[in-house]
């Protein structure tokens, strides 16, 4: 047992860090540090930079452009992205639909889509949730009816993240309404430009536009866009949902936020001294730091155990990472919110579609995005399977209850 990184792993970390420092545009980094939204171009630019380096789809098999890194290296790469901070490669392509295609897709699908995912030529979004199918995802009703060499899709998806930028959507659709609910589902790739698709924005509580509703009205999808076999989509979805074992806890992101909290609490005066010198504040911060350290070690245990895994099934421990990781992320947004104090109150939109977006800042110049980040981050214990659903999974899969 040696719980430290090896010299080779440390050298790898330095290489990754140096590359990020040298190649990430400062404007993008600043936006992430300050908690501002990235433009589509920011994300595309960065992913193409990574792609040129051969790091855009680090987790894929080498044959499809992956790196062949060990699980520990993959972890370090993710961690460095979050610490820099740099944008994560767009997950819907890189960690979701890409790996599903690699595991279950046709050769034609792989050749057509995978390189375009790596270079972010196609922006993918995820069509899983529906108004009546949230935690109970398998009760989804969006229907695909086979007609000759294509499907006709009707229904509605929701919470579709960044669908406003998307070229393609991967959907779970019901292809057999008679079968048991998990058994009549298929995995379909749909071009967002197809007639009959309507995207409608959902504005979330902080005022931002990340998620959307997507409506399908007699949308014609070529049968060749079916992934794997008809009615096996649920298996592919489970594979997809369990893939994200490393990085799900987003330890690096919380570390970077804690760094930010300390930086701002050192300049924010509370009474006759900086807030960072307030005993109660320090104890709250230390509490989160201890939890984060424990989570980091738990994460490393999962990563280190991965080389012993022979199956491709999700590690149930990743549910623990999701629960603790999201709770800690939320705790950091609360602390940051506390730091800003009364100047959390002014609502200062940063979206260009709001006419007030470019007005001079009110209060400290860093105050604007902090309350919205706090409000927005409540999503983390809801998305990706709510933390309550994660507990159901652990109770069943680990505890046998």
């Amino acid at each position, binding site marked *: 047992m040696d719980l430290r990184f090896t010299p080779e792993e440390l050298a790898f970390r330095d290489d990754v860090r140096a590359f990020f420092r040298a190649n990430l545009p400062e404007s993008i980094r600043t936006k992430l540090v300050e908690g501002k939204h990235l433009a589509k171009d920011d994300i595309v630019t960065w992913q193409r930079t990574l792609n040129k380096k051969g790091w855009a789809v680090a987790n894929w098999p080498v044959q499809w452009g992956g790196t062949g890194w060990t699980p520990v290296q993959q972890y370090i790469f993710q961690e460095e992205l979050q610490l820099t901070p740099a944008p994560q490669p767009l997950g819907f392509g890189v960690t979701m639909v890409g790996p599903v295609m690699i595991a279950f897709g046709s050769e034609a699908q792989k050749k057509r889509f995978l390189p375009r995912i790596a270079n972010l030529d196609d922006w993918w979004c995820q069509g899983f949730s529906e108004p009546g199918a949230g935690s109970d995802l398998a009760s989804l009703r969006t229907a695909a009816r086979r007609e000759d060499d294509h499907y006709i899709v009707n229904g509605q998806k929701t919470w579709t993240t960044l669908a406003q930028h998307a070229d393609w959507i991967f959907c779970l659709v019901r292809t057999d309404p008679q079968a048991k609910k998990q058994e009549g589902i298929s995995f379909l790739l749909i071009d967002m430009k197809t007639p009959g698709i309507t995207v409608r924005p959902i504005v979330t509580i902080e005022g931002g536009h990340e998620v959307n509703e997507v409506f399908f009205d007699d949308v014609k999808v070529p049968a060749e866009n079916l992934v794997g076999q008809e009615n096996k989509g649920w298996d592919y979805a489970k594979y997809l949902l369990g893939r994200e074992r490393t990085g799900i806890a987003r330890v690096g992101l919380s570390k970077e936020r804690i760094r930010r909290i300390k930086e701002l609490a050192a300049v924010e005066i509370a009474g006759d001294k900086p807030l960072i010198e307030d005993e109660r504040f320090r104890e709250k911060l230390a*509490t989160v730091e201890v939890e984060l350290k424990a989570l980091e070690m738990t994460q490393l245990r999962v990563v280190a155990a991965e080389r012993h895994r022979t199956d491709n099934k999700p590690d149930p421990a990743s549910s623990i990472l999701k629960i603790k990781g999201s709770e800690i992320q939320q705790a950091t947004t609360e602390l940051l919110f506390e730091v800003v104090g009364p100047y959390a109150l002014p609502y200062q939109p940063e979206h260009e579609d709001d006419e007030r977006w470019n007005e001079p800042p009110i209060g400290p110049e860093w105050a604007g995005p902090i309350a919205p980040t706090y409000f927005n981050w409540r999503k983390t214990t809801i998305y990706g399977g709510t933390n309550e659903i994660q507990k159901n999974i652990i109770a069943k899969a680990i505890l046998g209850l």
Partner: protein
Amino acid sequence: MDFDLSEEQRLLKESLDRLIGERYAFDQRKSYAQSPEGWSRELWAQFAELGLLGLPFEERHGGSAGGPVETMIAMEAFGRALVLEPYLATILLGGGFLRHGGSAQQCAHLIPKIADGSLTFAFAHTERQSRYDLHDIETRAVTDGAGWVLDGEKGVVVHGDSADKLIVTARVGGGRRDRGGVAAFIIDGKAAGVSRRGYPTQDGLRGAEITLANVRVGPEGVVGEPGGALPIIERVVDEGIAALCAEAVGAMAVMHELTVEYLKTRRQFGREIGSFQILQHRAVDMLIALEQARSMAMFATMMAAEENAAERRNAVAAAKVQIGRSGKFIGQQAIQLHGGIGMTMEYKVGHYFKRVTMIDMMFGDADHHLRQLARRGAAPAAA
């Protein structure tokens, strides 16, 4: 980055599990606790035979030169069985003072006897006013020719009633709370002027209140530099905390297993109570607390031998915070989910609860260490 045990470590774990399985059933433990010293000399001899008592010591002193990981393996197994024997007091604290502060002569003279089981130690440090501050010492040592004379009172000395030797901390200079002026001595448990009042502790171990009146110590009984012993004390205590964290993890794991098992067998309202979601989620919360504690016990183990004292202190403090919090949650919930049976002295789970509760109070509880971390503004460094 590698969390696997080596072949030797796996063998160590297996032989420990076998010994505990054969010799440390709950009823057997009860009989050991009722013996005059509160623990079993016979088992102690078996520990020696297995090489457990020499684990952290150099081979030339009869040890096997194990490191913090070997100690972690042993302590976790002891935690699983609620072992009563003075392993922490003798091997890790007494032995720790010798390893880190002992002269060549002291080590050559005493360590082989520790390793063969013929000598036990206790760490007489806490005083009525000191709570958890290691530098808060009123016991005095004044020079007496080449030796020293000790006067003072030590309390809650775990295994202090039966120990052959005591490590006593005392002040040779400075005021009560100064970091300088601290010394450590090895004295005989039966030395003239030592009076000991032994008692059982809440968790079934033994403790003692010890009065030192005009106790004479020769120069061979001084550990480290008189006046400059605090860094050694801190180092030994940090290793002790790391070991306690592992012990607590063993105890927590058993409480969690017992609870999950109970949820699967206990029936009410015509079904297993483990089918109720609120209880399932509670059991999951316990598991998360356990895994976070296990992670931090590993972190403390990894950092226990760290040469940079500030980093080591911060890491160990962070681990103790997590262990304290997880232990309290798991212990309280284990009792709650067992219902009435969990409240009985007859059933196991309450004894585990009491042990993890007392571990929190040893060398600083969760709040104490959190306060220390907050004051130092120190997050433990990354792996």
